[in-house]
């Protein structure tokens, strides 16, 4: 942007919209000002000379009255509407809660007071500096004769012209600066708590989805084990006379399934206890540490990352991380220390994960998990509007997952 345009930018429509906002503040400030100067006027009339004390008292009174009104909820709401409409800026995008805590109201009160003070300054500028500037310019051009008792009478026109331009510049840039100050302060004083509230909501949602996942996993694994228990126990009851050997094996299976379920419960409890704040949940940005952990376990991982991985929303990124974790874990469990190719691509809010490894020559032993890991991954992908595909292609076991950020 060239310097001339930069210099002229404060004179654009934004400034004039903010000027309306500030002048409104100045107008509202007037009655407070009357309260503030009234003691001084009284002292002046009295002629007792206690002007300084009266002025100080007046200012205190004014501050008190401003503080009282500034704390009103209606004032906060008016300020939010006015600031959103006239200041615009980052505040517009923010969701401001309908009711707020006391601390928020204090902040909003401070914003109201700032509005009054800045508005008062701009008001003074509007009724004094702006007309003065115009008058000086008119005087400089000789179109108007300044009144006889003005000290500027008869001054050379260039000085008068400069003075006029100076007044206009002070007014314009002053208004622009104060408008920018208000616009900067608005989200901080009016909206900050709402940002905090949003962050809190996000945190709670994250925590809930984490608990949901845990509950689901537990439901899945314990449900699975108890199904085995029910089926085997039913079979044992039915066959106990005809085939006692079968019944004995069934009871052993019941025992094993029940122990497995208890171990799963133990594990879940440990997870619940160890779980730090959800902020500590690992996401795709932590993929390097996962890769080095897996490498330590024996996998030789060829990693390829592309796209703005750090820009993904936390819940998506953390679930994607867990899908990669599961896929690498599966590779290690079923194929052993093999080369693994890991590709993570992020494009337009869509994450594509690709994990492939050679299939071991001897098929792995039947998995006690019964493929629950794959199922879990599919559910994670589906919950993010995506899908998962796991298959063997030309001696390679490949897992491809797509997950997208919700709109």
């Amino acid at each position: 942007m060239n310097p001339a345009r930069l210099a002229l930018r404060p004179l654009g429509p934004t400034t004039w919209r903010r000027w309306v906002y500030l002048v409104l503040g100045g107008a509202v400030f007037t009655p407070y000002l009357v309260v503030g100067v009234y003691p001084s006027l009284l002292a002046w009339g009295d002629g007792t000379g206690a002007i300084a004390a009266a002025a100080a008292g007046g200012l205190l009174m004014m501050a008190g009255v401003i503080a009282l009104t500034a704390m009103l909820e209606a004032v906060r709401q008016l300020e939010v509407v006015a600031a959103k409409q006239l200041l615009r800026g980052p505040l517009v995008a923010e969701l401001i809660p309908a009711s707020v805590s006391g601390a928020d109201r204090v902040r909003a009160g401070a914003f109201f007071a700032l509005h009054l003070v800045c508005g008062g300054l701009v008001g003074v500028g509007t009724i004094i500096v702006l007309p003065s500037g115009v008058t000086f310019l008119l005087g400089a051009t000789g179109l108007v004769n300044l009144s006889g008792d003005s000290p500027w009478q008869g001054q050379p026109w260039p000085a008068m012209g400069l003075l006029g331009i100076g007044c206009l510049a002070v007014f314009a840039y002053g208004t622009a600066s104060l408008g920018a100050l208000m616009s900067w302060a608005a989200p901080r004083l009016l909206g900050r708590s709402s940002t905090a509230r949003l962050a809190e909501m996000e945190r709670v949602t994250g925590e809930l989805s984490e608990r949901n996942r845990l509950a689901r996993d537990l439901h899945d694994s314990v449900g699975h084990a108890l199904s085995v228990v029910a089926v085997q126990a039913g079979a044992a009851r039915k066959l106990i006379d005809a085939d006692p050997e079968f019944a004995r094996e069934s009871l052993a299976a019941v025992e094993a399934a029940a122990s497995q379920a208890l171990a799963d419960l133990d594990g879940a409890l440990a997870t619940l206890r160890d779980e730090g704040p959800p902020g500590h949940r690992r996401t795709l940005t932590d993929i390097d540490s996962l890769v080095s952990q897996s490498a330590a376990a024996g996998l030789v991982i060829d990693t390829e990352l592309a796209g703005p991985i750090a820009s993904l929303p936390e819940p998506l990124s953390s679930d994607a991380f867990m899908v990669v974790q599961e896929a690498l874990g599966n590779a290690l469990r079923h194929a052993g220390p093999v080369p693994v190719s890991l590709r993570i691509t992020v494009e337009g809010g869509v994450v594509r994960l690709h994990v492939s490894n050679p299939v071991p020559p001897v098929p792995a032993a039947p998995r006690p998990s019964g493929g629950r890991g794959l199922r879990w991954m599919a559910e994670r992908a589906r919950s993010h509007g995506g899908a998962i595909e796991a298959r063997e292609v030309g001696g390679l076991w490949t897992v491809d997952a797509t997950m997208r950020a919700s709109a």
Partner: protein
Amino acid sequence: MTTVMVVDDEPLIRRGLRAVVDAEPDLEVIGEAVDGTEVVPLARRHRPDVVLMDVRMPRIDGIRATELLLAAFDQPPHVLVVTTFENDEYVYDALRAGASGFLLKRAGPEQVVEAIRIVARGESLLFPAAIRSMARTHVGTPRARRWSLTEREEEVLRLVAQGASNSEIAETLFVTVETVKTHVSNVLAKLGVRDRLQAVIEAYETGFIATR
């Protein structure tokens, strides 16, 4: 002899179900599949009457396997979905795909063999309350109805959805069982569905019967 195929990714479940089924003189397990990919080839080889189908399996799940199975044969086997959880979202999808009924893994051996005999006869295993609650969570906006029934047929469909048997319907409507059978087959034909269970699902999904 009714032949049965067991599809489940958990060997212990297959083993238990096989033992329970084989212990019956009129039932026999003739094949086991460990996931959906093996279902159609094994069914071709063994031609079972009934398939006990797990829903949640890696690779091809029970829903897709049911679809494939029903599409692969002119006279497909009857599919009985076997599930861990009653409120499993997959069960309803499997029923929509054409399964004849569902069975909980925790059901005792007696119920398992009874259910196999029922679907082997070509009947549906209806749990009206369970299907209604599944339909409630699955059916959003009812889709348009492309059929119209006579008043009597509508009554019959409502009774079917309540789980009434032909003889119960006959008693309620003061007609013969033969008449009820005619009505039921007319209803199935007009709705374009294979069996009573599919008819009930269609009734819910078109809003003919409200889910709540």
